[in-house]
């Protein structure tokens, strides 16, 4: 195992220059969760229309894996239907469990998270944003979750 298995350029780029990290006033759905293991905290806010995620933003603090995963997620699910976003979330989880070989065309930057599979304790960090998104849209409205784990 080498350090660049986990800290790929893409991950460091999203960590240092997070995309869509902002408040989303008037968001239709929002949810916050934390990972008590390391104190990562992520809030995801999204605007939904006709079952489609129009705009997805996040706020939070934590390690590079949790925050870059959130950043990449907002880019990859924006514009998708809730169904497609949840399907991608399932595939990301599958990739992190070592069970899904990512299709680079579908995954885009998210492929960079593949290396986390070798670091089991960090998988929770990578999954956190996806858990928050899932809870936000499954409630279909304002929700505030508790601890993710």
């Amino acid at each position, binding site marked *: *195992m*080498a*350090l660049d298995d*986990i*800290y790929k350029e893409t991950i*460091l780029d999203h*960590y240092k220059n997070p995309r869509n990290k902002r408040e989303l006033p008037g968001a239709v759905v929002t949810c916050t969760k934390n990972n*008590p*293991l*390391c*104190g*990562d*905290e992520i809030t995801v806010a999204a605007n939904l229309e006709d079952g489609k995620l129009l705009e997805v933003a996040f706020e939070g*603090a*934590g*390690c*590079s*894996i949790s925050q870059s995963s959130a950043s990449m997620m907002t880019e990859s699910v924006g514009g998708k239907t809730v169904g497609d976003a949840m399907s991608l979330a399932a595939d990301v989880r599958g990739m992190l469990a070592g069970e899904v070989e990512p299709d680079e065309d579908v995954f885009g930057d998210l492929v960079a998270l593949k290396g986390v599979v070798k*670091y089991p304790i*960090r998988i929770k*960090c990578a999954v956190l944003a996806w858990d928050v998104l899932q809870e936000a849209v499954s409630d279909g409205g304002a929700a505030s979750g508790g601890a993710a784990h």
Partner: protein
Amino acid sequence: MAVTERRAGSIDVESVRADFPILGRTPHGKKLVYLDSANTSQKPRQVIDTVSEYYREHNANLYRAVYELAEEATAMFETARLKLAAFIGAPDPTTVVFNRGTTESINLVANGWGRRFLKEGDEVLLTDMEHHSNIVPWQLVANATGAVLRYLPLTEEGSLDLTNLESLITERTKVLAVTGQSNVLGTLPPLKELASAAHAVGAVVVVDGAQLVPHNPVDVVDLGIDFLTISGHKMLGPTASGGLYGRRELLDAMDPFLGGGEMIMEVFPDHSTYKEPPHKFEAGTMNIAQEIGLAAAIDYLESLGMDAVREHEKQLTAYAIGRLEDAGAVVHGPKDVEVRGGAVSFWYRDIHPHDLAQVLDQEGVCVRASHHCAQILMRHLGVPATTRASFYVYNTTEDVDALVDALARAEAVFA
């Protein structure tokens, strides 16, 4: 058993290191730099061999069996009790209860003493730097009894703020439960002063000794405390070894915690009578091999001398604080090594502790990155987590240098 030679008042670290087989590991091709002894310590071959020999030569269950093996196992187990009692200055070995360590011990006191004697409105005084294992058992008991939890605050530096002690220790205070040495900050609270203030109002003093006992000479009589918890795995012993010291009058008066075989005198359909302490608190098959291994760990520590252990860690801690601060790290907790032990938590250049620990791991450096089961303290410090390096008898200044070098590597990745 072979013991390590030592020079008076100091530790011969190279010969100590030779006793720890695991230090020969080379994670990621690097020399192992183990800086997580506050989490669990490594084990010398004397402990490993003792446990192995017990299973190879003496294994049997305690007390009841009438054959040679069982008599040997029982004698070894009870000898371990004598050793642990002597190690903490307890004159009466029946005041030492064996169990899995601090978490189980605090649960024992909270349930056995707390549920029996706490009433609605009584207060349990904790501090803002307690480990969750010295908070949650009291919360559970407070919920059941109507007792109220109070917390001694901390100073900016991370010592206990005793300026309002008199308003917090009152006639309502029935228990003071305090750490002997903070697992995050290394802070050594003034136990004698606290015990005396608590006893002045008739409160019982419980000391979480998980970090205190492995690193300092301890004498329960001199400290004047009522209960002390001991985690064997943090003091070179096997996991799930250790126990509880309790003043005999208190052990006699309180209820058992776990019920089962071996802790009873007679069992009737609707009630039972119990053995005398310590057996009243030792239900079921005990952690025999572990406590026998702990006795070997105590022999090892005593061969070094606990004064020398403390001195060694003071020197390492002072060196580490200096080097970390020079490298740009913010070190939490008191800086004066006279009032702190060798658990050094720090924040380094806004690199998240998890990321930092991951990079350090690649360099063979093992540290802990977490809230250290002290979320109340993390809120006080205003951080989600810290990186913690902690030292023991086998650590050297070269280990500290390796840590600081690895920090530079992390900075290169995340800058």
